[in-house]
């Protein structure tokens, strides 16, 4: 192959990150669709919008606020992991990735516990359906992020990343921050915009 057939434009954003950003933009539309169902139902709901009759009001304590803080902190620890590998510190990467995975798992565990305390199920009216669908699909995305982070931990343990070659870490961090931003929107919608 002669040079001009292989000479790609090397500058600019790395190809995997472009792909991840495009994927995230489609995820934005996915959650946009789910949020649209929520606001549509809320706008046309006759009666008081909220958990079905008989169930307690939603409270941000004891669980939702702490797990929100956990998820926000996990974005910071994810960024520490990226900064570590940009400096070339593989041990720093492994440390901060492990912390991030742990926080992600804590969030999921907290959310599952929260589900048991709500006093209503997915089939108890349109609010309940919206609540479980939105939080459930966000949780599924957190789970996807945890899987991605776990793969990163395994790859980091084999020393696959370096200061120059760690685009997978950057890509997963984009995704993790995105999942965090969705939760901020969701937390605000469910607990404050009532």
């Amino acid at each position: 192959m002669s040079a001009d057939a292989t000479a790609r434009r090397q500058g600019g954003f790395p190809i995997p990150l472009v792909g991840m950003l495009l994927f995230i933009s489609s995820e934005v539309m996915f959650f946009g669709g789910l949020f649209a169902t929520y606001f549509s139902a809320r706008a046309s709901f006759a009666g008081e919008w909220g958990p079905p009759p008989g169930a307690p009001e939603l409270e941000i304590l004891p669980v939702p606020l702490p797990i929100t803080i956990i998820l926000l902190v996990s974005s910071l620890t994810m960024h520490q992991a990226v900064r570590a590998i940009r400096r070339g510190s593989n041990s720093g990467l492994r440390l901060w990735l492990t912390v991030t995975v742990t926080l992600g798992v804590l969030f999921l565990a907290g959310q599952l516990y929260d589900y048991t305390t709500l006093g209503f199920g997915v089939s108890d009216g349109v609010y309940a359906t919206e609540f479980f669908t939105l939080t459930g699909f966000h949780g599924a995305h957190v789970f996807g992020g945890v899987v991605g982070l776990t793969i990163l931990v395994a790859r980091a343990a084999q020393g696959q990343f370096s200061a120059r070659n760690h685009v997978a870490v950057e890509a997963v961090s984009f995704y993790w921050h995105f999942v965090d931003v969705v939760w901020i929107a969701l937390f605000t919608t469910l607990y404050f915009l009532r």
Partner: protein
Amino acid sequence: MATTTLAPGSTTYSRSWVIDWLTTVDHKKIGVLYIVNSFVFFFLAGLLALVIRTELAVPGLQFVDESTFNQAFTMHGTIMIFLFIVPIFSGFGNYIVPLMIGAPDMAFPRINALSFWMLPLGGALMMSGYLVGGAAAGGWTGYNPLTQEQFAPGDGTDLWIMGLAVIGTASILGSVNFVTTIFKMRAPGMTLFRMPVFVWTVLVTQALILLATPVITAALIALFIDRNYGGSFFDPSVGGDPVLWQHLFWFFGHPEVYIVILPSMGVVSEILPVFSRKPLFGYRAFVWATIAIGLLSWSVWAHHMFTTGAVFLPFFTFMTALIAVPTGVKMFNWLATLWRGSLMFTTAMLFALGFVSMFLIGGISGVMLASAPVDFHLQDTYFVVGHIHYVVFGGATMGVFAASYYWFPKMSGRKLNEVLGWAHFWVLFVGFNLAFFPMHGLGIQGMPRRIADYAADAGWTEMNLIATVGAFLIAASMLPFVLNVVTTLLNGEQVGEDPWEGNTLEWATTSPPPPYNFDRLPPVRSERPVFDLRHRTDGAGHAAGDATASEAHP
């Protein structure tokens, strides 16, 4: 050129061709897989169309019962849209786009293979409804409450939802791949405004897929939760809203219309200049019109919902009429390209001209439906069925066949027979108009869509019979096509790298191209690099270099 010995060796180790095709990550092979898979589903859904037309040929229920009929039109529509017309352009795009922009492959070859293999899986899931007591029967639009548990109790609808979700995920992954490829993998000199118009249309199409498909996925998930877990998204008795489904469906579904038609417009805009021996008239106007259609397509979805009473009619009427403007710009591009050209009526050209004429009719009936007062009369009648088929069959599918005849020599090294091609086109063209033009009249007379039977004294019998004859003519036109493909592959006329004297980079490599696509790329200084190469007068010998390359890989 010494390094060219590297690549052929990499493909010559022995491996069964079955394994080779099942595991390939080469964009050209994946493109062929997409195209073959799409044609298989095209023929399956075509058989379902014949079931529909046979039942409607004369009044009375002679051939199938209502339930089978409902499944037939549902699966016909769903398969044609999601498993034929969208993926087949992903197939042509897969094969041609990297070649056109001078890239060695797509940006993510393995994701490319994944997005293809999810399609037959999704299709099988959806079709397996027939094995478990009946496929989905709520129409391809899946309106609520027709698809709710109490009206569609079987597993067929759940399988339909799952199949569509799998296909949607495949489309999203594919669109990530296409957009990344087009933005990041272009050859030196291939600026955005030197990209072939087909690449532009694929870019806008894939951006629409990327952003529209997740919305239908969300809607499908909501429907699945309603059906299986007691959810109430679309159940008005507990605060849900069945019209919400229509909003979500058409928020995807109207961009989908442009997802279907834009690549076909791109194909036609490649073919008309080549066989008119002229450049495309108004390249930039065409590109901006494509972008404008892509943007406007987000603001017209509710024109499918005029009669719900839940949408603001003037806005959506205005936006729908507005989107006809960039479409009209393109019509002008095409006609001005043909004007005083040295026209060559190859089969590809015939289909391209078929596209322009039939899509014009579909576009005009679309503007008629955009008018809310007219739409109130014609909603859910056969007029709409006629309209969609002029757009999706007379438009997009004509483009599929144009692309098939145009790029077959590039993909196989052999040229399809022009006599059989001529027969294919004319039988199809006559059959198409017999089948679908009468539907406009039926619709104006009030015949509703999606009915299995009609009264003998309704005055609809003659036009229905004509439509049925047309449908069987369309089916007959596929025989010369299939015969043509088979005989050409076995024993067709062999051609070199550029049988049509094309303009774009795919004609600057061998037919079929080697796995790495190009030995060397011609310089890209305009949107017609191969034309520039052919008509160079400074004698710098690029053509000679390419001839050597083609001898190295026959």
